């Protein structure tokens, strides 16, 4: 019982860095590039108004792993996402 309580306490104490579930956001940049890895090979392009699904956040907070609605997965700069969604 004590162990269970301790586990619950640890879970509550550790802040989660990733989104609990994928959330759709809108791209605000005129044109944004999707990368295989942050700054790596280009794998896609999205435009202002396009919706993308946030999968997880990069360690430094400047990149998001996203899935575009047409299926491509890649890393997108946080600055390309609308401010209210960041």
């Amino acid at each position, binding site marked *: 019982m004590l162990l269970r309580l301790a586990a619950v306490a640890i879970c509550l104490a550790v802040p989660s860095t990733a989104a609990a579930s994928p959330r759709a956001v809108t791209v605000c940049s005129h044109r944004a590039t999707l*990368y295989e890895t942050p*700054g*790596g*090979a*280009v794998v896609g*392009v999205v435009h202002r108004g*396009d919706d993308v699904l946030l999968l997880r956040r990069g360690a430094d907070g400047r990149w998001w792993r996203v899935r575009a609605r*047409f299926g491509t997965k*890649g890393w997108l700069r946080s600055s390309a996402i609308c401010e209210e969604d960041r």
Partner: protein
Amino acid sequence: MSAEPLVLRGYDRRSDTELLGQFRTGDDRAFAELCDRHGAELRRYARRVLRAHHELAEDVVQEALMRAHRALRRDERHLHVRAYLFRIVRNCCLDELARLRTDSVALHLLRPGEEPASLGDSPHEATLRRDATLSALADVADLPASQRHALVRRELDGLSHEELARELGVSVKATKNLVHRARANLARTAEARDARCDDVRHELLVAHDRHRRPPMRALRHAALCKDCRAFRTALKASRERLSVLIPAPAGLGLIALLAGSGKATATKLTAGVTAAAIAAGGAYELRTQVFRAGAIAPLEVQSVSVPGGVLNRGEKIPRGTAVVTGRLEVSPQAAPVAVELTCPNGMRVAGLVPSGGDGLAHGFDPATVTGVSRTARVLIAADDLRAPRRVTVATLCRAPDRSGSVRADIARTGEPIVHACSRRAMLLASPGGSVAGTVTSAEPLAVLEGTEHWLRVRTDANRTGWLSSGVIC
């Protein structure tokens, strides 16, 4: 006094089939005679299969005979008793070996400081081994019955060709032929299974376009791969529509040559290659152009695979590099349009070239792997279109260097290049940590750092992660 005839066990002259028939009518002594007749041979066979655990042979044969006793009485089919008993002993041996391999170790047997996990394979190694075993079993199961029987009896049961020939009632030469064909088929199936889906789809597409039978490798792969099978079915279903939408290739080639860039020479620019873009909503006419080394770059390219990182529009394309563009008219529809751009022979996909001005979101299908795929599958979003629009998509292609990498800076950095030995290896986030992805044996991996047991590697697509040094060739 019993009226049944007295038969000395082991000297019964009844055939196996006769004994089986009497056992099925309820005569247990008939089964005992079968056990006596074949028992010694079955135990020898079990010892051979169990090898290091030959002391378990007696138990395994007992277990096999118990199973046979239950099964033969229920089953009314005619069967070859001796072969059946051998088969059931073999299965029991394999079960026993599997059980020995997966048995957990009692904690009290561990030495001080020893971790239970250190006694066995890591989870990803176990996954890979299980994957390989399942694939091998599936491949053997798919062999024609005669080849499968010959191979199993020869490889697993250790029968000589003469014994095998007697069992099958054919010549020795014929058994050698069967075993040889089975081995060759297994090798071809493994090759087909390991082939990349986009390469196979390209072969299917080309064969479909030419009204020819696809290569055997593509057919074998499609038989094993659900997605490629669905692709082939979609191709067949769209044949009639394609024949209406796509005019003769020669005519299109001429049109494309006329419409193409006049500055590019015919030897450097391959124009007018027509293919089909398949989408849920239908088929599209796709016109591709291949700009080879020495031709004028049709678009600006920013990539790690271009010397200096940038190739400006209008500059000459460097050696070992090509740009493949595809132009098509996209109609409004809910499903994304998928087009395939194939790199010239010997080249690999080195990254998407975002084409400006079209305003349509697009990107690689996740199945396209930079540095490995020869065909880039590009998905185009068409759901917010209001009217049909002409779109250009492009991919950069590059011939891998001697190390197998398509990165232009690989020679400068001097990073050693390695490959995974197994068909697929797990890329970990940290040594022994969580799985961050997979790499294939075809992917060149630059070694960034390493310890005795772990190497941190980077793929051509700039993915980094840790690999166990045991999976590196």
